[in-house]
């Protein structure tokens, strides 16, 4: 079987890559193009000269702060979601707390339209002065990713042989120690993969940030949307900031690559 059609498959894979990466290639060129190369018909595919002005602008005008804000918010949200989600998942996986109904109930939160939820949240955050604050955005993103973490980690925890936990208990570990010293280290692959995806979800989140941030904690998606104004669309700025913002996520993906496929699917399989 192997070998037959192997070359054909490779060509097919290459074609797919071209189709899926063309948009990214395009913003890569746009980021380095002069305005004369961007606003020209017919479009030119490669920059005539390399232009670093837009990257410079992102630093001189302080737009880079959006990346820092996104890093802070996504990291904070990931920590909250992982801590609360994983412990809840353990309780559900091992103690059947609340049974299947609770598990389904938790998952059903994932389908809440952020726009529907953020409206009352906006009003409350105005009262308690959490609008435009890191804490407010972190709390919201963290809570919203709990259902995902619970469902993924439940699968990973069920994978840990229960005998290990039992013998730890018999050896005199408390339940807490068993969780920290036995279960979590055993499930670390799942922990990492789930954390990466939670990070990506929080990193990409737009609706909450759009409504709840004004000047202080503007995140990357909000900043990029600001570049798409009604009067003018700053193509090259969008391109430059998108590329810079892609770096942290891409690093996360590459470092975690061998866990990724397992990461998205295992929770689903176990679900």
């Amino acid at each position, binding site marked *: 079987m192997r070998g037959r059609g192997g070359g054909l498959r490779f060509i097919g894979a290459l074609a797919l890559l071209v189709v899926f990466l063309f948009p990214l290639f395009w913003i890569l060129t746009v980021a380095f193009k002069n305005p004369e190369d961007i606003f020209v018909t017919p479009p030119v595919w490669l920059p005539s000269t390399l232009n670093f002005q837009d990257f410079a602008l992102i630093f001189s005008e302080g737009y880079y702060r959006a990346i820092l804000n996104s890093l802070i918010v996504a990291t904070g949200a990931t920590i909250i979601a992982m801590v609360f989600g994983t412990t809840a998942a353990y309780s559900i996986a091992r103690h059947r707390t609340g049974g299947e109904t609770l598990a389904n109930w938790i998952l059903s939160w994932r389908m809440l339209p952020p726009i529907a939820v953020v409206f009352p949240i906006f009003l409350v955050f105005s009262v308690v002065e959490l609008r435009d604050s890191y804490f407010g955005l972190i709390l919201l993103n963290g809570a919203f990713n709990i259902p995902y973490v619970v469902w993924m980690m439940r699968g990973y925890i069920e994978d840990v042989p229960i005998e290990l936990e039992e013998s730890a*208990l018999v050896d005199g570990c408390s339940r807490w120690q068993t969780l920290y010293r036995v279960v979590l280290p055993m499930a670390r692959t799942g922990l990492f993969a789930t954390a990466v995806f939670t990070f990506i979800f929080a990193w990409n989140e737009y609706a909450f940030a759009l409504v709840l941030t004004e000047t202080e904690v503007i995140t990357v998606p909000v900043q990029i949307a600001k570049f798409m104004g009604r009067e003018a669309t700053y193509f090259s700025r969008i391109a430059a900031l998108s590329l810079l913002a892609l770096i942290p996520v891409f690093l996360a993906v590459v470092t975690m690559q061998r866990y990724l496929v397992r990461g998205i699917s295992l929770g689903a399989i176990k679900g």
Partner: protein
Amino acid sequence: MTPRAERSTAAAGSSGWLDRHFKYLLLYPAIVLLLLIGLFPVLYSLMVSFQNLTMLKQDYGFQGLLNYERLINTDRFWWAILHTGVLTAIALPLELVFGLAMARLFVKDIRGKRLFLALLVLPAVLPPIVAGGIWRMLLDVSFGPINQIIGWLSGGVPASINWLIDPFYVYPTILLTEVWEWTPFMFLILLAALSNVDPSQEEAAEIDGAGPWTIFVRITLPAIWPVMIVALLIRGLDLVRTFDIVWALTKGGPGTLTETISVYMYTMGFQRFATSYTGAMAFVIIIVLSLAVMVLLRRVEIAR
């Protein structure tokens, strides 16, 4: 397995307060957070939906079902539901079919497989609003390369398709962006599922003379079914609440032709400040979707 674990605790003899309430202490913080962030908005939406708060007046008196009547009698609301339904009904099968086809391609050994996977996953890790921005550039009527490429393919006649404005092309535009961004996600999940299918079964069926289609329907499909259902569920729910991509591309336009439920809700709540009306809409949408999800999840369980 619970009774066994329970007994082991007794054997270990540890019975501090923390230990005894262990399983609840682990669970409650998450539940409290979810209720705080989730249940509160639902109740709040319900409350304001019985009042009459608009941009112009702040009438806190009980108004009965006024806002629900308004909602039901507003064509724009029903259109928004229809738009959302159409987008979901077209995008979901497309993502599934493309994702499955790609997964079939990559489930066999391919040189440089890991690099391919790392690069192919990139669209899915891009913020959807950014994906929308990128496609706006690509589809720009005069400065975008897509019209240029179409021009080449149609024999040098320059194309000037107004992808973001022309009523005929706005849906294809949104679908294209949506499918580009999320097919890789579907692909990764299905690839994992396909990798777990025992090849010997497929080979045995092949020896027995079954055609490729029969093998796929009878052996492969049932094996990946549970994963596929969950993937469809996750993507379906995301599509139902679609906001970012539509907002970036058309803001619901031209007119209200591509307005989804989320876009409509945003417009009414944050641009028109129709607080009570939006509250009623949010409440209805949340309740309907929750029920749908509960029913779907039960179905999925039974299906297994």
